[in-house]
């Protein structure tokens, strides 16, 4: 009886502790928010007015979109996809190799794993556009820095995902197979590989989607693609032309979205 009461009291006090933590957190958050308003000299009315202001400017100036430049732009659109594709292939290869050195179940040496993990984290934590601007800085403007930047960023993301997947898969199915007396080769081919492949296809297609969106933006730092076109149009006040370009990107992204979903389904 005493034990049950103790357990009950413990559970209740834990809940109380969580509630208290939540309160403290929200309170601190509000304090920072208020400090922020003063430090950044934000005027709250202006903040709320900004949205309707933006929408009205957007609606009047960016519409109707001017599609006349489609043929000129087609080249850049294809370039955007080509970018993403090349980067995807390169990063897939690099990521597969690196993931082997990062997965606990494949690489038993901790120092090696840690170094790879740190390196991959470095690749992943720097925003893609920053990579783009660094590489353009080193290599000059052009297509290659853009592809490199995209590859590095994607590798950062994919390696971690692959390694995590390998580790996850290794656990369950290997045990089952061992229990059934499978040889090592059988374990790899029929255990890990099939499940990994479907995950692999999934993540690779997803990285392609990310790549298409990122490559349209890399143009902003001089690395090629459609981003720089949009920026130029806007700087020249040609809003309607730029809106057409934005719509092209939206359509492109949606198409890529559909295509990758379709491919995903057929591979299953």
């Amino acid at each position, binding site marked *: 009886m005493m034990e049950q009461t103790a357990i009950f009291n413990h559970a209740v006090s834990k809940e109380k502790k969580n509630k208290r933590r939540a309160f403290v957190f929200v309170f601190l958050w509000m304090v920072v928010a208020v400090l922020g308003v003063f430090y950044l000299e934000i005027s709250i009315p202006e903040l709320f007015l900004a949205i309707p202001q933006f929408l009205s400017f957007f609606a009047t100036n960016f519409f109707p979109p001017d599609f006349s430049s489609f043929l000129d732009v087609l080249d850049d659109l294809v370039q955007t996809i080509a970018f993403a594709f090349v980067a995807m292939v390169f990063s897939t290869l690099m990521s597969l190799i690196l993931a082997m050195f990062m997965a606990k179940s494949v690489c038993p040496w901790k120092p090696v794993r840690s170094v790879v993990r740190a390196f991959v984290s470095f690749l992943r934590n720097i925003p893609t556009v920053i990579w783009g601007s660094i590489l353009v800085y080193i290599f000059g403007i052009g297509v290659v820095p853009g592809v490199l930047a995209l590859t590095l960023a994607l590798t950062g993301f994919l390696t971690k995902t692959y390694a995590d997947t390998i580790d996850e898969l290794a656990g369950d199915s290997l045990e089952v197979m061992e229990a059934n007396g499978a040889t090592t080769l059988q374990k790899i081919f029929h255990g890990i590989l099939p499940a990994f492949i479907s995950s692999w296809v999934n993540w690779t297609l997803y990285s392609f989607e990310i790549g298409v969106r990122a490559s*349209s*933006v890399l143009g902003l730092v001089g690395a090629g693609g459609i981003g720089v076109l949009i920026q130029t149009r806007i700087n020249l006040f040609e809003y309607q032309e730029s809106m057409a370009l934005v719509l092209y990107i939206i359509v492109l992204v949606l198409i890529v979205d559909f295509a990758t979903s379709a491919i995903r389904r057929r591979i299953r």
Partner: protein
Amino acid sequence: MQDQMKQAYEKNERAIHLKLLLFVLGCLALFTFSIFYLKIDIPKFVERLGNTPDVLRRMAGIDWAIVPDLLEQTLVTIFLVVLSLTGTVILSFLLSFLAADNTAPWRWLATLIKAVITIIRAIPSLILALIIVASIGFGYTPAIIILTLVGVATLTRLFIGSIEDAGTDIIEALDATGSSWAGTIIHGVFPIVLTAFLSWFTIQIENTISLSISLGVLGIQGVGLLLSNAQMNYQFTTVTTIILYIFINMFLLEYFMQKVREKISG
């Protein structure tokens, strides 16, 4: 009988292998096409590669003078992120319950919200930033609008996923007791999705900070702006310092957020 099953299984496996082969071949073909299309100038790249040791040597070094600016911009970033996330969380919370299949009170509204979100998410965030800046100018307020807009689109989508995962059982149960829509949400669905929501929130913190750094490249605000300026002035060591600073921060952030996430689900 078993032989038949075995044959069917192997046939299926072969079909999958074939599809996979086609996929890989298709990728290789597109890849070759892309390389040629982009006119990747290998000789020129190799030549530039020769410059790299020189550039790297000039970049080796820390510019301590920039640290105060970095710290100040970090403070700015923190404020921007906190302010925009406040709006993001409130809006996403409301919109997600209005749009999820199992909790939507009006079907048309749910579809509308989902459609708008998909469109906003289809626009790369920096392009969206360009448009907003063109419309309402530079400065902290536009920056907050950008971060909030992108944040709402992303977070709402994540929230909706979790709400729909929660299923309809609890909702039916509470409806049967005569509960109001708000009541069902607050007492029924919300406790179930709370853990997931908190995890998404931490991910959104990381995303927002990453986005605010990238905004600097457009000349808007923050640490990215310092980087951009340093690059334009060819201040090599400054660039290195800023890069390292960005990395250390993002790394610590990711580490810290991971710990928080473990605590949430632990």
